[in-house]
């Protein structure tokens, strides 16, 4: 009897060991996801996190992962708090086979992670946010911020305004106001706009709004008094909704009010109702579900009961942004795996993947993303991508965003000079020698 028990026990141990060995043998790609599903910015954090998770779940369910290796998505809650974000980074970087990359979804967290990740040799993909001068790959080896930066976007807005005013020369004497979140994120476009104001002769009015931005009456009173010809907004969360309502309330023309791509989601305009009609925002990807990838997500993820969120909200602007972030990251992992012929890449190999990323029209079509966004090519020197942005406009009646321009090129003369200046200063402060990118 005793011998039987021992034999059974040994058998169980052997079986467990076998299972564990099997698990260890299967290659796994650990991708931490810093999310904010709680806190004051949760309404925006949730759709992004859902789109991000759904895309990786789609790859696991439909393709068996990336190049045969399953993605292990590790969510960590930051509540859009920089300190919590850094804790998330420290807690997740060693998980599983080691974190392959980070998408911090916060400029404040990105600023903190840049030096840390560079030491730990883990790529940070701050997609269209974070430190703009990180676009200089010669200095920021581990940071990528394609497809466009805040500075690209600011210059595109000025181009659009120039076009609407009948030519850039007509900007002289015009007044442009910037209503911004009083944080590292909100302050990012100021230098570019100041340079552009010198270049084109418009005056710039800066109007910061403190977190969270629930009370903005004095800001909009100043706009009412100064009557700027155009108003730009770098807002986030409740600040956007209140600003759009206040603008409508003082009778500010919505088609002269342009938000950054973080101020251009359904969440931002719906609370204002019809008053938000005509409001503009920058973006670099489509909205809605008219893309094959959404049908795949519906079939392989939601119909299988593993969707991250509400089925009805697939295709919202921030959902699609999370989705494209995941798609580009997955392509970077794939590129790194192919470059190094491995099914279990290291973070450094994924960084190589990022630096050699080429998602052209044909690849976008294969991914079910044809017409969704622009093709991108990342190089050793250029981590900021093509820097192109288009504008979308809110149709309050149909409750949808419409693409109203083609992709604009940024003002490279101004933006590149600023990137060189800022990244050079960073290199000097940190005793970095720029890489030779050939």
């Amino acid at each position, binding site marked *: 009897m005793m011998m039987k028990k021992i034999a059974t026990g040994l058998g169980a141990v052997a079986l467990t060991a076998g299972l564990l060995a099997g698990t260890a043998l299967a290659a796994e790609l650990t991708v931490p996801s810093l999310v904010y*599903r*709680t*806190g*004051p*910015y*949760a*309404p925006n954090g*949730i759709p992004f996190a859902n789109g991000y998770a759904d895309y990786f779940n789609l790859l696991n369910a439909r393709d068996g992962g990336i190049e045969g290796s399953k993605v292990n998505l590790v969510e960590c809650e930051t509540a859009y708090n920089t300190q919590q974000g850094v804790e998330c980074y420290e807690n997740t970087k060693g998980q599983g086979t080691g974190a392959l990359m980070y998408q911090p979804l916060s400029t404040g967290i990105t600023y903190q992670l840049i030096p840390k990740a560079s030491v730990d040799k883990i790529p940070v993909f701050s997609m269209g946010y974070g430190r703009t001068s990180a676009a200089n790959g010669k200095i920021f080896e581990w940071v990528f911020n394609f497809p466009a930066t805040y500075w690209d976007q600011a210059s595109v807005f000025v181009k659009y305004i120039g076009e609407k005013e009948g030519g850039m020369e007509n900007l002289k004497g015009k007044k442009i106001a910037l209503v911004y979140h*009083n944080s590292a994120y909100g302050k990012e476009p100021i230098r570019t706009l100041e340079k552009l104001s010198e270049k084109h002769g418009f005056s710039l009015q*800066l*109007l*910061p*709004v*403190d977190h*969270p931005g*629930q*009370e903005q*009456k*004095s*800001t909009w*009173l*100043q706009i*009412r*008094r100064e009557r700027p010809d155009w108003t730009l907004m770098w807002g986030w*969360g*409740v600040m956007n*909704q*209140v600003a759009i*309502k206040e603008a*409508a*309330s*003082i*009778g500010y023309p919505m088609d002269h009010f342009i938000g950054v791509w973080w101020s251009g989601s359904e*969440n931002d305009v*719906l*609370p204002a*109702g019809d*008053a938000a009609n005509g409001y503009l925002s920058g973006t670099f990807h489509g909205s809605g579900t008219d893309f094959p990838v959404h049908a795949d997500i519906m079939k392989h993820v939601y119909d299988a009961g593993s969707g991250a969120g509400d089925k009805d909200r697939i295709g919202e602007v921030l959902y699609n942004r999370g989705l494209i972030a995941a798609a580009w990251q997955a392509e970077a992992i794939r590129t790194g795996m192919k470059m190094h012929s491995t099914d279990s890449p290291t973070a450094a190999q994924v960084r190589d993947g990022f630096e050699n990323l080429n998602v052209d029209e044909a690849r976008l079509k294969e991914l079910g993303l044809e017409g969704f966004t622009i093709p991108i090519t990342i190089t050793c020197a250029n981590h900021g991508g093509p820097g192109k942005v288009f504008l979308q406009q809110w149709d309050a009646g149909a409750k949808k965003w419409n693409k109203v321009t083609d992709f604009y090129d940024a003002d490279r003369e101004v933006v590149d000079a600023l990137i060189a200046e800022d990244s050079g200063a960073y290199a000097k402060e940190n005793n970095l020698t720029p890489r030779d990118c050939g």
Partner: protein
Amino acid sequence: MYDAVYPFLIEPFAKMWTDMPLFFAETVISGVMAGVMYSLVALGFVLIYKASGIFNFAQGVLALFAALTLTGIMDNFGAPGWLAIILTVAIMFGLAWLIQKLVFNHLINQEPIILFMATLGLAYFLEGAGDIMWGSDVKVVNLGIPQGASQWLLDGPGLYVEKLEIVAAVTAAILVTALTIFFQKTRIGRALRAVADDHQAAMSVGISLEKIWIVVWAVAGLVALVAGIMWGTKSGVQFSLSLIALKALPVLILGGFTSVPGAIVGGLIIGVGEKIAEVYWGPALGGAIENWFAYMLALAFLLFRPQGLFGEKIIERV
């Protein structure tokens, strides 16, 4: 020297002069209206502090929870606004009973800091419960409260005043009148005042502390619902709504923690002060000064009246 002084001591007043009368009036009116909105939140703090000595950190979250419940009932069950309000009031009363039974009954005779910490825990609990029950999405309050600028004032004298804020001001006036009648004329109100004056004396004449505290929490819940509706209509109901409590703190410091009129007058002073400061001194200081300015203003008042404008002067023998 002139360049350093000009933006702070000359330019703001020069601008005020050139802005007279319309724009300056708009700034003051906006301040008054914003102040009323702050007062709505501050009132909830005052009620609980007055009756029980508890500084209720959860008051902002109570406003959020009430607004979430209201919009949740309307959106998820298709209830009309009036029914949703009645149900939310009932839920807030039930919540008041639960808070007293499950939390504060177990903390009788504890130090004020312990009671404060309990409200801190309550705030996080209610925030989480609200999230689980109603989700984190931005919700629109569809009660038909008018919004946007008053066209009548805009077309007539050319004044820009928000309709929502006029509604908030009228609502606050009704609320304060109702609270005053409740405190002065009803039996429970008088009992509540007795408890606020002296717990032991009140108990010695047969007033049940527990019952009174439930009533206080229920009334604070009702005030929170009103504040939640007004702020929720302004910005959409979302989790940042709980942070409106931060706007009420300088109001309380200034008006006193125990005075209903103090909450109103304090709110008005803070509202007008911060708007004038932001519009006229903000540009010289880089903008976004109104939040800290409100606290500065409150602290300046404290130098002369440590108990706040309407607070009770406490003299203790040591």
